[in-house]
C-alpha cells in the first residue's frame, strides 16, 4: 500500500536552528513532523545569544524569522524523549508528555553544550568574581544583569577555552569562538569606549565571509589589542582584579597584565543528553563524544543506523549557516529515504 507523505512521521529531536529549519523543510514536503525540545522554548543556543557575527544581526530577529511560521509542524517544548524503540520499520518514540509516535525517520539535531569553563581551573571561572564566559557576556548584552561586568577599564578575552585542548578531551577547534570573541570585543568597546581590550588567541581563524573585515574593524576602529598567546594562568590580586599571565609569542616574551574582566570563550562540547539515545540505537560516536556520520563528505547527514539522520552541531562544531544548510540537506536526505521505502 502506498502511503502518502502525510501518513509518514518524522521525529526531530532538538529544537535549535537545525531542528527548526529541518522541520519546516520536511513539513513543506508534506510529512508529519514532530519537533521535540527539552527547554521551554525553541531556538537552542541561538535563543541565548544577543547578536550574531559577522554583521551583528540580532539573534532574536533570526530566530523570530525562523519560527514565524512553523506550518503544520507539531512542536513540543519542555519535552524529552523517555523511551526509544527500534521497530522493524521505523522507531517508536515515547515522549515525557505521554505522547507515543511511530516515526518513519528520526533526525537528531541535538546540537552541542557549551564547554564547562570551570574545568579549566587555572582560569578560575566560578572562583574569581571577574571571570565570565562568552555566554555570560551575551546575557549581559541582552540586558540580563551580570554583576561581574561592572565598569571595566581593562578587559581580556581568552580564545580556545576548552578547544584545541587535549587535556580536557577536546582536541578540535570549536570554529565559532574566534569570530565570537572579536565580535564581543567590538561590542564591549561600544559599551566602554575607553576600555583597553585584549584578545588572547592561539590562531585567529577568520575563515568566513565578512570575518576578516570584522577582525580588521576590531583592530582599526576599535583598537582591540591582539596578543598571540594562550593565557596560562589567572590570579586574583588583593583588590580582586585579575592578574593574567600569557606569553606574547610574537615577541617571545612573557606577558603580564592586570584586568578588570576576563571573558572565557567557551567552546563546543558534545551534548551529553544525546548519549542515552546513541546507546539505545548503537550510534557511532567519535572519541570526543560527537556523533559520527556515515561519511563526513558524501553522507554527512546519514548515520550508520537506517532511518536515523543528523544535522548541525551534534556531529561536531558548526557555524549557524553550516547548521542551517545541514538541516536542509538532512530534510532532502530524509525525503529521498522515505520515497524509497
Amino acid at each position, binding site marked *: 500500500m502506498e502511503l502518502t507523505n502525510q501518513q509518514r512521521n518524522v521525529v526531530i529531536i532538538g529544537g535549535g536552528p537545525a531542528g527548526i529549519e529541518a522541520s519546516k523543510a520536511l513539513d513543506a514536503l508534506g510529512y508529519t513532523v514532530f519537533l521535540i525540545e527539552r527547554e521551554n522554548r525553541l531556538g537552542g543556543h541561538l535563543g541565548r545569544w544577543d547578536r550574531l557575527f559577522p554583521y551583528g544581526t540580532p539573534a532574536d530577529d533570526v530566530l523570530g524569522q525562523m519560527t514565524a511560521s512553523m506550518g503544520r509542524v507539531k512542536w513540543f517544548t519542555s519535552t524529552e524523549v523517555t523511551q526509544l524503540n527500534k521497530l522493524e520499520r521505523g522507531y517508536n518514540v515515547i515522549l515525557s508528555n505521554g505522547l507515543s509516535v511511530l516515526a518513519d525517520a528520526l533526525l537528531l539535531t541535538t546540537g552541542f553544550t557549551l564547554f564547562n569553563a*570551570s574545568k579549566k*581551573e*587555572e582560569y*578560575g571561572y*566560578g*572562583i*574569581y*568574581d571577574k571571570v565570565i564566559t562568552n555566554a555570560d557576556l551575551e546575557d549581559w548584552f541582552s540586558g540580563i544583569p551580570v554583576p561581574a561586568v561592572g565598569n571595566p577599564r581593562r578587559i581580556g578575552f581568552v580564545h580556545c577555552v576548552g578547544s584545541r585542548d587535549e587535556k580536557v578531551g577536546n582536541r578540535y577547534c570549536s570554529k565559532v569562538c574566534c569570530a565570537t570573541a572579536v565580535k564581543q570585543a567590538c561590542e564591549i568597546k561600544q559599551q566602554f569606549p575607553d576600555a583597553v581590550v585584549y584578545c588572547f588567541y592561539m590562531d585567529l581563524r577568520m575563515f568566513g565571509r565578512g570575518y576578516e573585515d570584522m577582525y580588521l574593524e576590531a583592530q582599526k576602529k576599535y583598537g582591540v589589542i591582539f596578543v598571540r598567546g594562550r593565557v596560562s*594562568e589567572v*590570579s*586574583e*590580586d*588583593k583588590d*580582586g582584579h585579575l*592578574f593574567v599571565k600569557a606569553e606574547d609569542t610574537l615577541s617571545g616574551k612573557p606577558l603580564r597584565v592586570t584586568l578588570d574582566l576576563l571573558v572565557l570563550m567557551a567552546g563546543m562540547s558534545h551534548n551529553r543528553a544525546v548519549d542515552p539515545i546513541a546507546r539505545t540505537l548503537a550510534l557511532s560516536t567519535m572519541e570526543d563524544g560527537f556523533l559520527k556520520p556515515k561519511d563526513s563528505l558524501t553522507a554527512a547527514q546519514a548515520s550508520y543506523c537506517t532511518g536515523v539522520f543528523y544535522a548541525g552541531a551534534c556531529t561536531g562544531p558548526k557555524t549557524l549557516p553550516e547548521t542551517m544548510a545541514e538541516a536542509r540537506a538532512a530534510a532532502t536526505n530524509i525525503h529521498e529515504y522515505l520515497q524509497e521505502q
Partner: protein
Amino acid sequence: MNYEGKKRIWSEFQKEIPDDRYFYARSCIRQNFNPGAEQAFLDIVRNRFGKDFYEDPLHTTCGGIAYHSDTTPEETSMTIIARQFSLMNQAGYRNFVVSCVTSFGLHTEILQTWEEHPEIEAKIHELLWKACKREFTKPDFLMHSSDMMYHYRFLISEQARYPLINVHTGEPLKVVEHIGCHYSKIFPSKSVGGAEYPRVLAGLVEALGGSVVDYPERRHCCGFGFRQYLVKANRGYSLTNTYKKFESMEPFHPDLIITNCPGCNYFLDRWQYVIAETSGKTYGDTPGYGIPVLSSEEVSALVMGYDPWDLGLQMHQVAVEPLLDKMGVQYDKSRKYKGVGGKDLGIPASPANIRIF
C-alpha cells in the same frame, strides 16, 4: 573569590588517607636544616595521637636531589626506593609516608611509571636483587607527611593551645601556604585538592584558626629548582624566582608562611636574608623582620604547645619571635641559642638589613 567554587574543585581531588600504621621515610636535607620538624612529627603522631609510625634506621635518601640535578639516572632512584619498600615489607607495613615533597613526587612518579611499564618494575626487581639480595612489594598507600597533618588536622585543633590567631587583635593570622611543586603539579590526582587550588595546607591552616592568603604568584616555585640553585651561575635565577613570590605576597602583609617541602622551607627562609642583604628589602607584617617560614609539622607543634626552641625554630633564618608574640606563645628568650643541656651554641652574627631577634 568564591569559596564555594574552590570547594567544588577540592571535592574532585580527594584521596583516601589511611589513619594508622605507616612506614616513615625522612628527608635528607630537612634532617640537617630543621631536624626538629621531623622529630615533632613523630612525637605528635606517636605520643599525642597514639598512631603507629615506624622508622627504620637502615633507610636512606631516595636520591631525588641527585635525580633532579641530572646526576643519577632514574633506575638508580628506583632501586633505592625499591629498597625502602623492601624495608617496609620487612617491618610489616603497607603504607608509606615520606617527609619530603621531592621524595613524595619521585615515589609517585616511580609508582606511576611501574604501573604504565611493568617491564621497568621487573627490571628494578632484578637490579635490587643484584644489589642487595632483596625483594619488595609496592605499598598500598603513599602519603606525604603534610597529607597526615591535613588528615589529623581536627585532632591537632582539639589539642591546640595557641591557635593561629593574633592574641592582640583577635584576628586570624594571615598565612601564606606554599606547596612544593612536586607535591601536586606532576600528579594532581595524587594530592589533596589538586594543583591549581591545593587544599592540603589550606585545610590545615583553616582548622588551626588562621586565614589563607591567596596571592597572584601562589603557584610559583620557591626558587630552589635544583640546578637553578646548585649551579652557582644560575643562582641569581633562583633568587629572582623567590623575589617574585615575595613581591607578589607583599601587599597582603602575611604573618607566616607554611610549607610542606623541606627545600621550599629552606629557600623561602634563607632567600629573605639574601634579598635583604642585597636590596635592603624585607617583607611581612612586622617591619624589618621578614616572614617566618615554618613547615606544617612545626606549625602544628607550635599550635599544640611545643616549646619553640625544642622545636628548633632558632634554626630558621627569619626570627620567629614576632610570630610567637602574636600567637601568645610563652617562651624563654635566653634559651634560644642554648643546645641540649643548656650548651651554648653561640649567637649568630647579626645581618645588616634583617633583624634576627
